[in-house]
Protein backbone atom coordinates (compact mmCIF):
# COMPACT_ATOMS: atom_id res chain seq x y z
CA UNK A 1 0.00 0.00 0.00
CA UNK A 2 2.87 2.35 0.78
CA UNK A 3 4.47 1.72 -2.57
CA UNK A 4 1.12 2.30 -4.27
CA UNK A 5 0.85 5.64 -2.53
CA UNK A 6 4.41 6.48 -3.53
CA UNK A 7 3.75 5.71 -7.16
CA UNK A 8 0.54 7.72 -7.05
CA UNK A 9 2.28 10.89 -6.03
CA UNK A 10 5.38 10.50 -8.15
CA UNK A 11 3.48 9.76 -11.34
CA UNK A 12 2.44 13.05 -12.80
CA UNK A 13 0.11 11.78 -15.47
CA UNK A 14 -2.50 9.80 -13.58
CA UNK A 15 -5.57 10.90 -11.66
CA UNK A 16 -7.88 8.91 -9.43
CA UNK A 17 -5.50 6.00 -8.96
CA UNK A 18 -7.77 4.33 -6.49
CA UNK A 19 -11.56 4.48 -6.40
CA UNK A 20 -13.69 3.40 -3.50
CA UNK A 21 -17.45 3.58 -3.37
CA UNK A 22 -18.57 5.00 -0.06
CA UNK A 23 -22.15 4.63 -1.09
CA UNK A 24 -23.82 4.79 -4.44
CA UNK A 25 -23.59 8.58 -4.68
CA UNK A 26 -20.21 9.27 -3.09
CA UNK A 27 -16.73 8.33 -4.21
CA UNK A 28 -13.31 8.72 -2.75
CA UNK A 29 -10.70 9.67 -5.32
CA UNK A 30 -7.08 10.73 -5.28
CA UNK A 31 -6.11 13.70 -7.40
CA UNK A 32 -2.59 14.51 -8.42
CA UNK A 33 -1.09 17.81 -9.39
CA UNK A 34 0.19 17.70 -12.95
CA UNK A 35 3.56 19.26 -13.62
CA UNK A 36 2.25 20.58 -16.90
CA UNK A 37 -1.03 20.44 -18.71
CA UNK A 38 -1.62 18.06 -21.61
CA UNK A 39 -3.56 20.80 -23.32
CA UNK A 40 -1.24 23.69 -24.20
CA UNK A 41 -4.14 26.16 -24.10
CA UNK A 42 -4.98 25.43 -20.48
CA UNK A 43 -2.90 27.39 -18.06
CA UNK A 44 -2.23 25.86 -14.70
CA UNK A 45 -1.73 28.41 -11.93
CA UNK A 46 1.53 27.62 -10.22
CA UNK A 47 0.21 28.01 -6.69
CA UNK A 48 1.93 26.09 -3.93
CA UNK A 49 -0.05 23.09 -2.81
CA UNK A 50 0.08 19.43 -1.99
CA UNK A 51 1.07 17.10 -4.84
CA UNK A 52 -1.56 14.46 -4.19
CA UNK A 53 -4.65 14.62 -2.01
CA UNK A 54 -7.73 12.52 -1.36
CA UNK A 55 -11.06 14.06 -2.24
CA UNK A 56 -14.65 12.95 -1.95
CA UNK A 57 -16.98 13.57 -4.86
CA UNK A 58 -20.69 13.39 -4.20
CA UNK A 59 -23.81 13.77 -6.29
CA UNK A 60 -26.14 13.92 -3.31
CA UNK A 61 -27.79 17.31 -3.37
CA UNK A 62 -28.11 17.48 0.41
CA UNK A 63 -24.30 17.54 0.59
CA UNK A 64 -24.23 20.91 -1.13
CA UNK A 65 -24.95 23.21 1.76
CA UNK A 66 -25.85 26.69 0.45
CA UNK A 67 -23.48 28.43 2.87
CA UNK A 68 -20.51 26.33 1.74
CA UNK A 69 -21.42 26.87 -1.89
CA UNK A 70 -21.66 30.61 -1.30
CA UNK A 71 -18.23 30.59 0.33
CA UNK A 72 -16.83 28.76 -2.68
CA UNK A 73 -18.36 31.38 -4.99
CA UNK A 74 -16.57 34.05 -2.96
CA UNK A 75 -13.26 32.09 -3.04
CA UNK A 76 -13.49 31.79 -6.81
CA UNK A 77 -14.72 35.37 -7.27
CA UNK A 78 -17.72 34.14 -9.26
CA UNK A 79 -21.44 34.83 -9.26
CA UNK A 80 -24.66 33.19 -10.38
CA UNK A 81 -25.39 36.35 -12.35
CA UNK A 82 -23.92 36.29 -15.84
CA UNK A 83 -23.04 39.97 -15.56
CA UNK A 84 -22.26 40.45 -11.89
CA UNK A 85 -21.83 43.78 -10.20
CA UNK A 86 -18.20 44.46 -9.36
CA UNK A 87 -17.02 46.36 -6.30
CA UNK A 88 -14.29 48.95 -6.05
CA UNK A 89 -11.75 46.16 -5.56
CA UNK A 90 -12.80 44.60 -8.83
CA UNK A 91 -14.24 41.59 -7.08
CA UNK A 92 -17.79 40.31 -7.41
CA UNK A 93 -20.28 41.95 -5.07
CA UNK A 94 -22.27 39.41 -3.05
CA UNK A 95 -25.86 40.58 -2.97
CA UNK A 96 -28.00 40.44 0.15
CA UNK A 97 -30.47 37.89 -1.18
CA UNK A 98 -27.76 35.66 -2.69
CA UNK A 99 -27.88 32.96 -0.03
CA UNK A 100 -31.64 32.63 -0.21
CA UNK A 101 -31.70 32.53 -4.00
CA UNK A 102 -28.81 30.08 -4.01
CA UNK A 103 -30.81 27.76 -1.78
CA UNK A 104 -33.69 27.90 -4.25
CA UNK A 105 -31.39 27.35 -7.22
CA UNK A 106 -29.77 24.31 -5.58
CA UNK A 107 -33.13 22.82 -4.65
CA UNK A 108 -34.28 23.17 -8.25
CA UNK A 109 -31.18 21.89 -10.00
CA UNK A 110 -31.55 18.42 -11.44
CA UNK A 111 -28.01 17.39 -10.56
CA UNK A 112 -25.66 18.87 -7.99
CA UNK A 113 -22.07 17.66 -7.66
CA UNK A 114 -19.89 18.58 -4.70
CA UNK A 115 -16.22 17.84 -4.07
CA UNK A 116 -14.71 17.85 -0.59
CA UNK A 117 -11.16 17.68 0.68
CA UNK A 118 -9.64 17.49 4.13
CA UNK A 119 -9.13 20.92 5.68
CA UNK A 120 -5.44 20.14 6.28
CA UNK A 121 -4.91 19.57 2.55
CA UNK A 122 -5.81 23.15 1.79
CA UNK A 123 -2.91 24.43 3.84
CA UNK A 124 0.31 24.18 1.87
CA UNK A 125 1.81 21.04 3.31
CA UNK A 126 4.71 18.96 2.25
CA UNK A 127 3.34 15.46 2.16
CA UNK A 128 6.22 14.25 -0.02
CA UNK A 129 8.33 13.52 3.00
CA UNK A 130 5.71 11.18 4.44
CA UNK A 131 5.55 9.09 1.33
CA UNK A 132 9.21 8.87 0.47
CA UNK A 133 10.21 7.75 3.93
CA UNK A 134 7.60 5.02 3.97
CA UNK A 135 9.28 3.03 6.69
CA UNK A 136 9.07 5.93 9.10
CA UNK A 137 5.29 6.20 8.88
CA UNK A 138 3.48 5.52 12.08
CA UNK A 139 0.38 3.38 12.01
CA UNK A 140 -1.93 6.35 12.48
CA UNK A 141 -0.46 8.26 9.59
CA UNK A 142 -0.40 5.10 7.51
CA UNK A 143 -4.13 4.64 8.07
CA UNK A 144 -4.89 8.24 7.17
CA UNK A 145 -2.87 7.74 4.01
CA UNK A 146 -4.56 4.57 2.79
CA UNK A 147 -8.02 5.01 4.29
CA UNK A 148 -8.45 8.75 4.51
CA UNK A 149 -11.55 10.07 6.07
CA UNK A 150 -12.92 12.80 3.87
CA UNK A 151 -16.53 13.59 3.31
CA UNK A 152 -19.15 16.30 3.58
CA UNK A 153 -19.23 16.02 7.36
CA UNK A 154 -15.56 16.68 8.00
CA UNK A 155 -14.36 18.14 4.72
CA UNK A 156 -14.31 21.51 3.03
CA UNK A 157 -16.26 22.09 -0.16
CA UNK A 158 -13.65 22.84 -2.82
CA UNK A 159 -15.37 21.88 -6.05
CA UNK A 160 -18.88 22.22 -7.38
CA UNK A 161 -21.08 22.01 -10.45
CA UNK A 162 -24.77 21.75 -11.18
CA UNK A 163 -27.10 21.09 -14.05
CA UNK A 164 -30.69 22.08 -14.76
CA UNK A 165 -32.65 19.74 -16.96
CA UNK A 166 -36.13 19.03 -18.21
CA UNK A 167 -35.28 15.36 -17.73
CA UNK A 168 -36.50 14.58 -21.21
CA UNK A 169 -34.60 16.39 -23.90
CA UNK A 170 -32.11 19.00 -22.69
CA UNK A 171 -29.83 20.07 -19.87
CA UNK A 172 -27.72 23.12 -19.05
CA UNK A 173 -24.63 23.05 -16.89
CA UNK A 174 -23.96 26.00 -14.57
CA UNK A 175 -21.47 27.20 -12.00
CA UNK A 176 -18.64 24.68 -12.40
CA UNK A 177 -15.89 25.87 -10.06
CA UNK A 178 -12.84 24.70 -8.12
CA UNK A 179 -11.12 26.65 -5.36
CA UNK A 180 -8.07 28.44 -6.83
CA UNK A 181 -5.47 26.55 -4.75
CA UNK A 182 -6.54 23.16 -6.04
CA UNK A 183 -6.88 23.84 -9.74
CA UNK A 184 -4.88 21.89 -12.27
CA UNK A 185 -5.56 18.57 -10.55
CA UNK A 186 -8.44 17.37 -12.66
CA UNK A 187 -11.16 18.20 -10.14
CA UNK A 188 -13.14 20.46 -12.47
CA UNK A 189 -13.04 17.88 -15.21
CA UNK A 190 -14.16 15.24 -12.72
CA UNK A 191 -17.16 17.38 -11.77
CA UNK A 192 -18.19 17.86 -15.41
CA UNK A 193 -17.73 14.18 -16.20
CA UNK A 194 -19.88 13.26 -13.21
CA UNK A 195 -22.62 15.67 -14.31
CA UNK A 196 -22.56 14.21 -17.81
CA UNK A 197 -22.54 10.65 -16.52
CA UNK A 198 -25.66 11.28 -14.46
CA UNK A 199 -27.45 13.14 -17.25
CA UNK A 200 -26.69 10.52 -19.86
CA UNK A 201 -27.85 7.79 -17.51
CA UNK A 202 -31.20 9.59 -17.64
CA UNK A 203 -31.02 9.55 -21.44
CA UNK A 204 -30.26 13.25 -21.77
CA UNK A 205 -27.69 13.85 -24.46
CA UNK A 206 -28.35 17.48 -25.39
CA UNK A 207 -26.15 19.11 -22.76
CA UNK A 208 -25.26 22.79 -23.01
CA UNK A 209 -22.88 24.95 -21.02
CA UNK A 210 -22.78 28.74 -21.22
CA UNK A 211 -19.25 29.94 -20.77
CA UNK A 212 -17.07 32.99 -21.14
CA UNK A 213 -14.09 33.21 -23.50
CA UNK A 214 -11.64 32.23 -20.77
CA UNK A 215 -13.64 29.13 -19.80
CA UNK A 216 -13.83 27.73 -23.34
CA UNK A 217 -10.56 25.74 -23.23
CA UNK A 218 -11.72 24.02 -20.04
CA UNK A 219 -15.01 22.90 -21.55
CA UNK A 220 -13.28 21.91 -24.76
CA UNK A 221 -11.06 19.64 -22.72
CA UNK A 222 -14.21 18.15 -21.19
CA UNK A 223 -15.62 17.23 -24.58
CA UNK A 224 -17.71 20.29 -25.38
CA UNK A 225 -17.57 22.19 -28.63
CA UNK A 226 -19.55 24.67 -30.69
CA UNK A 227 -23.00 23.52 -31.67
CA UNK A 228 -22.89 21.33 -34.80
CA UNK A 229 -26.28 22.80 -35.67
CA UNK A 230 -24.56 26.22 -35.65
CA UNK A 231 -27.06 27.85 -33.34
CA UNK A 232 -26.32 31.33 -31.99
CA UNK A 233 -26.23 31.79 -28.25
CA UNK A 234 -28.31 34.77 -27.25
CA UNK A 235 -29.19 36.40 -23.95
CA UNK A 236 -31.87 38.93 -23.05
CA UNK A 237 -30.07 42.19 -22.44
CA UNK A 238 -32.61 44.87 -23.39
CA UNK A 239 -31.90 47.77 -21.12
CA UNK A 240 -34.39 49.72 -19.12
CA UNK A 241 -33.69 52.98 -17.38
CA UNK A 242 -34.59 53.93 -13.85
CA UNK A 243 -35.88 57.38 -14.71
CA UNK A 244 -38.98 56.67 -16.70
CA UNK A 245 -41.87 58.83 -17.62
CA UNK A 246 -44.08 55.90 -18.58
CA UNK A 247 -44.91 52.90 -16.45
CA UNK A 248 -41.85 50.94 -17.40
CA UNK A 249 -40.85 48.05 -15.22
CA UNK A 250 -37.16 47.21 -14.88
CA UNK A 251 -35.37 44.43 -13.07
CA UNK A 252 -31.80 44.22 -11.81
CA UNK A 253 -29.77 41.23 -12.90
CA UNK A 254 -26.26 41.67 -11.55
CA UNK A 255 -25.01 44.91 -13.06
CA UNK A 256 -27.59 44.90 -15.83
CA UNK A 257 -30.90 46.70 -15.63
CA UNK A 258 -33.34 44.76 -17.78
CA UNK A 259 -36.53 46.04 -19.30
CA UNK A 260 -39.62 44.00 -18.48
CA UNK A 261 -41.80 43.70 -21.61
CA UNK A 262 -45.25 45.25 -21.27
CA UNK A 263 -48.23 42.90 -21.10
CA UNK A 264 -49.68 42.13 -24.51
CA UNK A 265 -53.02 43.83 -24.98
CA UNK A 266 -55.95 42.17 -26.63
CA UNK A 267 -56.40 43.23 -30.20
Amino acid sequence: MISAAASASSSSATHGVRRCFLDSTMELRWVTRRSRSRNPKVEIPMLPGPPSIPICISAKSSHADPRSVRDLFVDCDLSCHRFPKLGHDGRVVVEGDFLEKLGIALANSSVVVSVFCRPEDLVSGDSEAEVVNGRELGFGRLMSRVAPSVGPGNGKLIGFGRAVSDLGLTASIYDVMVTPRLRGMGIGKMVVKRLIRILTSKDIYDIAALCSESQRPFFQACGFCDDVLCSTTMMYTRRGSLDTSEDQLVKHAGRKLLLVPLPTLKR
Partner: protein
Amino acid sequence: MVPMAMAPSSLLSGRVLGGHFNLLNRTTLQPSSWSELAAVRRQLKVGPLKAGFWETIRSGFVKDETAQIVDPPSTVGEEEERLTEEFILLEKALPDGTTEQIIFSSGGVVDVYDLQALCDKVGWPRRPLSKLAAALKNSYLVATLHSVCKLTGSDEGEQRKLIGMARATSDHAFNATIWDVLVDPSYQGQGLGKALVENLIRTLLQRDIGNISLFADGQVVEFYRNLGFEADPEGIKGMFWYPKF
Protein backbone atom coordinates in the same frame (compact mmCIF):
# COMPACT_ATOMS: atom_id res chain seq x y z
CA MET B 1 -56.27 37.79 -17.35
CA VAL B 2 -58.50 35.01 -16.17
CA PRO B 3 -56.87 32.76 -13.60
CA MET B 4 -58.03 29.23 -14.17
CA ALA B 5 -58.18 26.28 -11.80
CA MET B 6 -54.90 24.49 -11.35
CA ALA B 7 -54.35 21.79 -13.89
CA PRO B 8 -52.70 18.57 -12.66
CA SER B 9 -49.51 19.02 -14.65
CA SER B 10 -48.93 22.50 -13.26
CA LEU B 11 -49.38 21.04 -9.76
CA LEU B 12 -46.53 18.70 -10.55
CA SER B 13 -44.25 21.03 -12.43
CA GLY B 14 -43.40 23.18 -9.43
CA ARG B 15 -42.78 20.22 -7.11
CA VAL B 16 -40.85 17.92 -9.38
CA LEU B 17 -37.97 20.31 -9.80
CA GLY B 18 -38.20 21.35 -6.17
CA GLY B 19 -37.96 17.83 -4.79
CA HIS B 20 -34.78 16.06 -3.87
CA PHE B 21 -33.04 14.39 -6.74
CA ASN B 22 -31.31 11.09 -6.27
CA LEU B 23 -30.65 10.44 -9.89
CA LEU B 24 -28.11 7.63 -9.89
CA ASN B 25 -29.44 4.17 -10.53
CA ARG B 26 -28.79 3.02 -7.02
CA THR B 27 -27.81 -0.54 -6.51
CA THR B 28 -30.04 -1.43 -3.64
CA LEU B 29 -28.14 -1.71 -0.41
CA GLN B 30 -31.11 -3.07 1.46
CA PRO B 31 -30.71 -6.80 0.98
CA SER B 32 -33.74 -8.71 2.13
CA SER B 33 -32.02 -12.09 2.03
CA TRP B 34 -28.56 -13.54 2.67
CA SER B 35 -28.10 -14.41 -0.99
CA GLU B 36 -28.68 -10.77 -1.88
CA LEU B 37 -26.18 -9.76 0.79
CA ALA B 38 -23.63 -12.07 -0.78
CA ALA B 39 -24.31 -10.49 -4.15
CA VAL B 40 -23.79 -7.04 -2.67
CA ARG B 41 -20.50 -8.20 -1.16
CA ARG B 42 -19.29 -9.37 -4.53
CA GLN B 43 -20.13 -6.01 -6.10
CA LEU B 44 -18.40 -3.87 -3.53
CA LYS B 45 -14.64 -3.71 -3.67
CA VAL B 46 -13.33 -4.95 -0.36
CA GLY B 47 -9.99 -3.24 -0.47
CA PRO B 48 -8.17 -1.03 1.95
CA LEU B 49 -11.50 0.50 2.89
CA LYS B 50 -12.88 -2.33 4.97
CA ALA B 51 -14.38 0.27 7.25
CA GLY B 52 -16.24 1.75 4.31
CA PHE B 53 -17.63 -1.63 3.32
CA TRP B 54 -19.19 -2.29 6.69
CA GLU B 55 -20.48 1.25 6.73
CA THR B 56 -22.39 0.57 3.55
CA ILE B 57 -23.82 -2.70 4.78
CA ARG B 58 -24.86 -1.09 8.02
CA SER B 59 -26.50 1.82 6.25
CA GLY B 60 -28.41 -0.66 4.17
CA PHE B 61 -30.18 -1.94 7.28
CA VAL B 62 -30.74 1.48 8.73
CA LYS B 63 -33.84 3.24 7.44
CA ASP B 64 -33.06 4.60 4.01
CA GLU B 65 -32.16 8.20 4.65
CA THR B 66 -30.79 8.92 1.23
CA ALA B 67 -34.15 9.24 -0.44
CA GLN B 68 -35.20 12.26 1.53
CA ILE B 69 -37.63 14.69 0.04
CA VAL B 70 -36.39 18.18 0.63
CA ASP B 71 -39.24 20.62 0.52
CA PRO B 72 -38.27 23.64 -1.53
CA PRO B 73 -38.46 26.89 0.42
CA SER B 74 -42.08 27.75 0.11
CA THR B 75 -42.63 31.39 -0.54
CA VAL B 76 -45.41 33.38 -2.04
CA GLY B 77 -43.52 33.19 -5.29
CA GLU B 78 -43.83 29.42 -5.36
CA GLU B 79 -47.59 29.69 -5.01
CA GLU B 80 -47.81 32.14 -7.87
CA GLU B 81 -45.91 30.00 -10.29
CA ARG B 82 -48.44 27.21 -10.15
CA LEU B 83 -51.39 29.30 -11.24
CA THR B 84 -52.52 28.90 -14.78
CA GLU B 85 -52.66 32.14 -16.67
CA GLU B 86 -54.89 32.53 -19.68
CA PHE B 87 -56.02 35.48 -21.72
CA ILE B 88 -57.31 36.32 -25.16
CA LEU B 89 -54.67 37.74 -27.46
CA LEU B 90 -56.66 38.23 -30.62
CA GLU B 91 -60.28 38.06 -31.53
CA LYS B 92 -61.77 38.39 -34.95
CA ALA B 93 -65.14 37.79 -36.52
CA LEU B 94 -64.95 35.76 -39.70
CA PRO B 95 -67.32 36.23 -42.67
CA ASP B 96 -68.87 32.76 -42.20
CA GLY B 97 -70.40 33.75 -38.87
CA THR B 98 -67.76 32.30 -36.62
CA THR B 99 -65.42 34.06 -34.24
CA GLU B 100 -61.82 33.07 -33.91
CA GLN B 101 -59.96 33.76 -30.70
CA ILE B 102 -56.26 33.27 -30.15
CA ILE B 103 -55.78 32.40 -26.53
CA PHE B 104 -52.49 32.61 -24.70
CA SER B 105 -52.13 30.13 -21.87
CA SER B 106 -49.38 29.41 -19.39
CA GLY B 107 -49.12 26.56 -16.91
CA GLY B 108 -51.89 24.53 -18.47
CA VAL B 109 -51.93 21.00 -19.81
CA VAL B 110 -50.42 20.45 -23.23
CA ASP B 111 -51.49 17.47 -25.27
CA VAL B 112 -48.32 15.76 -26.43
CA TYR B 113 -49.95 14.46 -29.62
CA ASP B 114 -51.10 17.97 -30.54
CA LEU B 115 -47.58 19.23 -29.93
CA GLN B 116 -46.08 16.46 -32.07
CA ALA B 117 -48.47 17.41 -34.90
CA LEU B 118 -47.46 21.07 -34.56
CA CYS B 119 -43.75 20.16 -34.66
CA ASP B 120 -44.45 18.20 -37.86
CA LYS B 121 -46.15 21.25 -39.37
CA VAL B 122 -43.15 23.48 -38.79
CA GLY B 123 -40.88 20.77 -40.13
CA TRP B 124 -38.98 19.81 -37.00
CA PRO B 125 -37.47 16.31 -36.68
CA ARG B 126 -39.54 13.92 -34.63
CA ARG B 127 -38.62 13.27 -31.03
CA PRO B 128 -39.85 10.37 -28.87
CA LEU B 129 -43.23 11.20 -27.32
CA SER B 130 -42.21 10.05 -23.85
CA LYS B 131 -39.24 12.42 -23.89
CA LEU B 132 -41.44 15.24 -25.12
CA ALA B 133 -43.93 14.58 -22.33
CA ALA B 134 -41.16 14.49 -19.69
CA ALA B 135 -39.66 17.69 -21.04
CA LEU B 136 -43.02 19.47 -20.83
CA LYS B 137 -43.71 18.20 -17.34
CA ASN B 138 -40.34 19.33 -16.02
CA SER B 139 -40.13 22.70 -17.74
CA TYR B 140 -40.47 25.69 -15.48
CA LEU B 141 -42.76 27.55 -17.88
CA VAL B 142 -44.81 26.22 -20.77
CA ALA B 143 -46.76 28.79 -22.76
CA THR B 144 -49.20 27.87 -25.49
CA LEU B 145 -51.34 29.53 -28.10
CA HIS B 146 -54.65 27.99 -29.02
CA SER B 147 -57.05 28.99 -31.74
CA VAL B 148 -60.64 28.70 -30.63
CA CYS B 149 -63.33 28.91 -33.25
CA LYS B 150 -66.94 29.19 -32.31
CA LEU B 151 -70.20 30.54 -33.65
CA THR B 152 -70.33 34.25 -33.04
CA GLY B 153 -72.32 35.04 -29.93
CA SER B 154 -72.46 31.53 -28.54
CA ASP B 155 -70.24 28.88 -27.07
CA GLU B 156 -71.57 26.24 -29.40
CA GLY B 157 -69.36 24.27 -31.70
CA GLU B 158 -66.15 25.31 -30.02
CA GLN B 159 -63.03 23.97 -31.71
CA ARG B 160 -59.75 24.35 -29.92
CA LYS B 161 -56.49 23.90 -31.81
CA LEU B 162 -52.90 24.21 -30.63
CA ILE B 163 -51.10 26.71 -32.84
CA GLY B 164 -48.07 27.77 -30.83
CA MET B 165 -45.85 26.79 -27.94
CA ALA B 166 -42.78 28.01 -26.10
CA ARG B 167 -41.14 26.60 -23.01
CA ALA B 168 -38.37 27.53 -20.62
CA THR B 169 -36.35 25.50 -18.13
CA SER B 170 -35.03 27.22 -15.04
CA ASP B 171 -33.49 26.79 -11.62
CA HIS B 172 -36.22 29.11 -10.31
CA ALA B 173 -33.69 31.68 -9.11
CA PHE B 174 -31.02 32.84 -11.56
CA ASN B 175 -30.98 31.06 -14.90
CA ALA B 176 -33.56 30.23 -17.53
CA THR B 177 -33.17 28.85 -21.02
CA ILE B 178 -35.92 29.18 -23.60
CA TRP B 179 -36.29 26.10 -25.80
CA ASP B 180 -38.69 25.13 -28.54
CA VAL B 181 -40.49 28.25 -29.69
CA LEU B 182 -42.88 27.38 -32.49
CA VAL B 183 -45.93 28.85 -34.23
CA ASP B 184 -48.13 27.14 -36.83
CA PRO B 185 -46.96 28.37 -40.27
CA SER B 186 -50.46 29.48 -41.23
CA TYR B 187 -50.56 31.77 -38.20
CA GLN B 188 -47.09 33.23 -38.53
CA GLY B 189 -46.45 36.87 -39.31
CA GLN B 190 -49.04 38.22 -36.89
CA GLY B 191 -46.81 38.87 -33.91
CA LEU B 192 -47.88 35.68 -32.12
CA GLY B 193 -44.33 34.37 -31.66
CA LYS B 194 -43.35 37.74 -30.29
CA ALA B 195 -46.24 37.59 -27.81
CA LEU B 196 -45.23 34.09 -26.69
CA VAL B 197 -41.62 35.02 -26.03
CA GLU B 198 -42.37 38.43 -24.50
CA ASN B 199 -44.77 36.86 -22.02
CA LEU B 200 -42.18 34.26 -21.07
CA ILE B 201 -39.60 36.98 -20.49
CA ARG B 202 -42.07 39.06 -18.54
CA THR B 203 -42.92 36.15 -16.21
CA LEU B 204 -39.26 35.24 -15.72
CA LEU B 205 -38.18 38.79 -14.93
CA GLN B 206 -41.10 39.33 -12.57
CA ARG B 207 -39.76 36.35 -10.64
CA ASP B 208 -36.26 37.89 -10.59
CA ILE B 209 -34.75 35.34 -12.95
CA GLY B 210 -32.24 37.50 -14.78
CA ASN B 211 -30.12 35.19 -16.96
CA ILE B 212 -32.45 34.42 -19.86
CA SER B 213 -30.69 32.60 -22.67
CA LEU B 214 -31.55 30.66 -25.78
CA PHE B 215 -29.88 29.00 -28.78
CA ALA B 216 -31.25 30.45 -31.99
CA ASP B 217 -31.13 28.93 -35.47
CA GLY B 218 -29.60 31.19 -38.08
CA GLN B 219 -32.88 32.33 -39.63
CA VAL B 220 -34.42 33.48 -36.35
CA VAL B 221 -31.49 35.40 -34.87
CA GLU B 222 -32.96 38.65 -36.20
CA PHE B 223 -36.38 37.80 -34.70
CA TYR B 224 -34.84 37.46 -31.24
CA ARG B 225 -32.65 40.49 -31.69
CA ASN B 226 -35.82 42.55 -32.17
CA LEU B 227 -37.11 41.15 -28.92
CA GLY B 228 -34.09 42.37 -26.97
CA PHE B 229 -31.73 39.43 -27.21
CA GLU B 230 -28.04 39.90 -27.91
CA ALA B 231 -25.79 37.36 -29.60
CA ASP B 232 -22.74 36.20 -27.61
CA PRO B 233 -22.99 39.04 -25.09
CA GLU B 234 -19.53 39.92 -23.72
CA GLY B 235 -18.12 36.82 -25.32
CA ILE B 236 -20.46 34.37 -23.60
CA LYS B 237 -21.10 31.38 -25.84
CA GLY B 238 -22.93 28.14 -25.50
CA MET B 239 -21.02 24.92 -25.93
CA PHE B 240 -22.51 21.47 -26.35
CA TRP B 241 -21.29 18.10 -25.26
CA TYR B 242 -20.55 15.53 -27.92
CA PRO B 243 -19.85 11.96 -26.91
CA LYS B 244 -16.69 10.50 -28.33
CA PHE B 245 -16.99 6.83 -29.00
